[in-house]
């Protein structure tokens, strides 16, 4: 019994390791991005090789996970989906229970590492929406939309309650994109958008005071020069002083002199903009556009609804990271904790993103298979 399990596991592992199923354009894009990330991190961290090494190790771990997931057929992933979704949502509930009475509580302490269950939802959420819509007729009916709305609202609400507005936004976005790609009629989208706009004052009521402050600060950064306003002002100075060609690698004064807060994590894009200028920014955004475009291409080539919706949603939510983070450092959007993918220092984000790309690789490899 144990022998057979062991043999099957070995066979499974060998199959994964011997014939990786890699989409070369996507892999190239990701590799370039990781390199840009490490180079920027070296400068932002003030030449701290330990920081860069740690990040590189996370990329390697993420890449291994990517290879592993790319070997799992989309049909298998599909059959696991409800369990993965239920499991990750249950972990959120656990976090909510354990975090009772504390300020912000997002992690489960596994002893050797701290693990953030909301990261799982970035992947299991679009999977679940795709799984639900997969056997149903598209475009989805009002009833299907309502079910999807509930599927999104439960985990997103739990995450927003932690409170982690950034991640809640990304998770909601991922689910909503799957719904959008499923072909919800434009007039319905318009109607829902109208209702959402009307709900803004109510949402405002439920926001934490510090969240409101961040929105207000965006409108008038000078009003809060010691707190968030300081971040926004210094970030814009960094970006603006970079000019067209930038101050050059390792020559950004804003981060060197500690004017920029969190310059290795959420505000690393400001360091990049300062050192590489508009040329660098446009090149980096083009690289992101290329990766997102490739994701959508893979989605269009996919042969079944589940794969399509999932691949498309992952690609589009990748855009949200870039847009929200970029908008934040350029003073267009309030400060929410969304990292710049593959550039910001931080483990869980890189690993969970690479897992998502593993799913895409698998979908790409199985594009000829039929449902």
């Amino acid at each position, binding site marked *: 019994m144990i022998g057979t399990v062991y043999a099957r596991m070995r066979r499974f592992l060998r199959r994964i390791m011997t014939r990786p199923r890699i989409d070369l354009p996507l892999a190239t894009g990701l590799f370039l991005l990781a390199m840009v990330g490490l180079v920027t991190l070296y400068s932002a961290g003030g030449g701290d090789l330990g920081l860069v090494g740690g990040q590189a190790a996370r990329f390697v771990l993420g890449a291994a996970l990517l290879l592993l997931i790319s070997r799992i057929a989309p049909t298998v992933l599909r059959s696991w989906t409800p369990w993965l979704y239920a499991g990750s949502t249950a972990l959120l509930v656990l976090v909510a229970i354990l975090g009772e009475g504390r300020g912000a509580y997002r992690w489960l302490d596994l002893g050797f590492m701290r693990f953030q269950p909301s990261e799982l939802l970035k992947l299991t959420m679009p999977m679940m929406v795709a799984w639900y819509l997969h056997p149903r007729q598209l475009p989805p009916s009002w009833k299907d939309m309502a079910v999807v709305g509930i599927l999104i609202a439960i985990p997103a609400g739990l995450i927003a309650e932690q409170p982690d507005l950034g991640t809640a936004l990304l998770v909601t976005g991922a689910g909503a994109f799957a719904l959008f790609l499923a072909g919800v009629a434009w007039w319905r989208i318009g109607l829902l958008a109208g209702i959402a706009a009307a709900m803004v004052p109510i949402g405002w009521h439920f926001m934490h005071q510090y969240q409101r402050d961040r929105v207000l600060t965006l409108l008038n950064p000078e009003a809060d020069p010691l707190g968030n306003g300081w971040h926004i002002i210094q970030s814009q100075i960094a970006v603006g002083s970079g000019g067209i060609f930038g101050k050059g690698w390792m020559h950004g004064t804003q981060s060197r002199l500690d004017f920029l807060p969190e310059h290795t994590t959420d505000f690393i894009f400001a360091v990049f903009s300062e050192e590489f200028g508009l040329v660098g920014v446009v090149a980096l955004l083009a690289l992101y556009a290329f990766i997102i475009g490739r994701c959508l291409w893979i*989605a269009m080539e996919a042969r079944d609804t589940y794969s399509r919706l999932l691949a498309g949603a992952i690609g589009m939510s990748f855009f949200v990271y870039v847009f929200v983070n970029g908008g934040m450092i350029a003073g267009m959007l309030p400060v929410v904790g969304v990292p710049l993918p593959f550039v910001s220092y931080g483990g869980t984000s890189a690993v969970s993103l690479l897992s998502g790309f593993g799913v895409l690789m698998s979908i790409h490899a199985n594009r000829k298979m039929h449902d």
Partner: protein
Amino acid sequence: MKRRRALKDPRGEAALFQRRSLVGFTFIVLGLLALSGRFFYLQVMRHDEFVTRSENNRVKPKVIPPARGLIYDRNGVLLADNVPAFRLEAVPEQVPDMDAMLRQIGDVVPLDEDDIADFRKRLKQSRRFESVPLKMHLSEDDIARFAINRWRFPGVDVVPYLTRHYPYGELFAHVIGYVGRIDADDLKRLDPDRYQGTSHVGRSGIERSYEDLLHGTPGYELVEVNADGRTQRVLETHAPVPGKNLYLSIDVRIQKAAMAAFDGRAGSAVAIDPRNGQVLAMVSVPSFDPNLFVNGISSADYKALTTAPDKPLYNRALRGVYPPGSTVKPFLALGGLAYGIRRPEDTVLSTGEFCLPGASRCYRDDKRGGDGVVDMVTAIEKSTNTYFYKLALDLGIDRLSDWMGRFGFGRETGIDLDGEADGILPSRDWKMEHSRQPWYPGETIIAGIGQGYWAVTPLQLAHAVSILAGKGIPRAPRLVMATQNGVDAPKVPIPNPPTGPSLVSDPAHLDVIKRGMEAVVASGTGKKQFIGFPLVVAGKSGTAERFSRTTSAYDTNKNTAYLAARHRAWFEAFAPADDPRISVVALLEAGAWGAEAAGPIVRTVMESWLATQGDAPASAQPPAPAPTVPDTPEDLPVPADGGGAP
């Protein structure tokens, strides 16, 4: 469902998906272009401006911490003040080698491990150009020695700041509490922006419960600094908003008199204006000097306070729980009237012993032979146990605890202080929860005289008496009666509306209880205590056992010290009886008899209060000296069959 599945059209869906993907990608490209546009705007259009700002990024914000609000008594006597002091601060950016600096500076200004640990924690929390406090409250000596060695420590300086001082010391320690240095736990809890530059936070008492109002909002100035970080000039100043001043309803004169009346004996007294719930005095004896805590108490001082046998740090008014004894009898009588199971003229024959019907268990009056035939007024006056044993039994524990619960027994009064104890109001549910035992009738009987499981805080009892005195209208006790935005600003009163309708449906009921309580003072257990007092006082004594008895024998040892070691002494009163303006409760942890021991404290508090009133008639004569042995028997419960009381 089947039908819909049959209609599924893979080709159409693929086409739909492709259209959607293309539209989605178009949106994404537009979004990225918009982002690029914003970067173009910042990096090209406004490039020159930001280059200048980046080069001139020598303009730094410097926080100005707000002054903490002051605390006054009701007449404007200052109870908590801010006084200037000096502390050592370091600006991390300007210290070339932090570890070396910390090693060397200890030789000049003595630092202990806590100072260094706190400093390191604060260091992590702050930006590099912000100065971080290293040691508070420097002595003259420290300042002088640092001045000589200053050249050795770039980035370190002596900075003036305001520290808290409590001019009345131990008189208000349990009410006002104290502030302490912000520690690592506070840093997690407090808003870092609001507490920038602030070194102290309210730790207990009013200082803690009103922290939000007292603290204020920091201001800042934009200063231009040179390459070494030295301030060149101040460009802009935005003044901080100081914390609000608080006016307590306490009168320092009454507080002082109350404290003095205890003469160092452990206990507590609370005086409340029943018309509005304002606390006029609140003392817990013994007390301590809160000034010791402000800049970090020495471990020797702290050990002395924590190991003292009479526990000076223990707030007896707020947290001390004691059996209320006979002080609950007026409330019980009122309950009897309210539920319609007693008329004022109903009588009971007190023979000295009360036995449960159909049971051999008997309970004793404290006067051998009993008080004879008593009605409600006499029963209150003489504190006749038998009357209340029977009343409690007729009420039953459920009605009894429901009725007493309305007077706030068994839960927090809701006073504006943290950490209030809720005491115990005996009930079936409470007992089941705590001992998984059913309720026994005998327990109802002893509950009728405030013994058994029953436990109250002095504040709770004062609250209940205030409800009684205030025509039955419940109102939470309040210490802070007004706030003020600055010394010259008008005071803004804090209203204290009733928490519900009056508990008394028929004012005639209340009159009977008042007559009983007036009789206590006029001719009953408390008659020696208020001779010559110019107002009509309604009161009730209480003597609760500290330890349960083991024999049914009457105590023949009348030695005061011996009795005091066994008894808690209570006295509750309000005046003037027909239109009460003050209600007072006093408790002595060790008092021989309620009226003799605690009564004089209540009288002292009332006299000092009277002296503060404009219409004060002069007190005719000092209170009569308390006799060592009461000639009116007191109200002690004893199960006659030996050791029935838990």
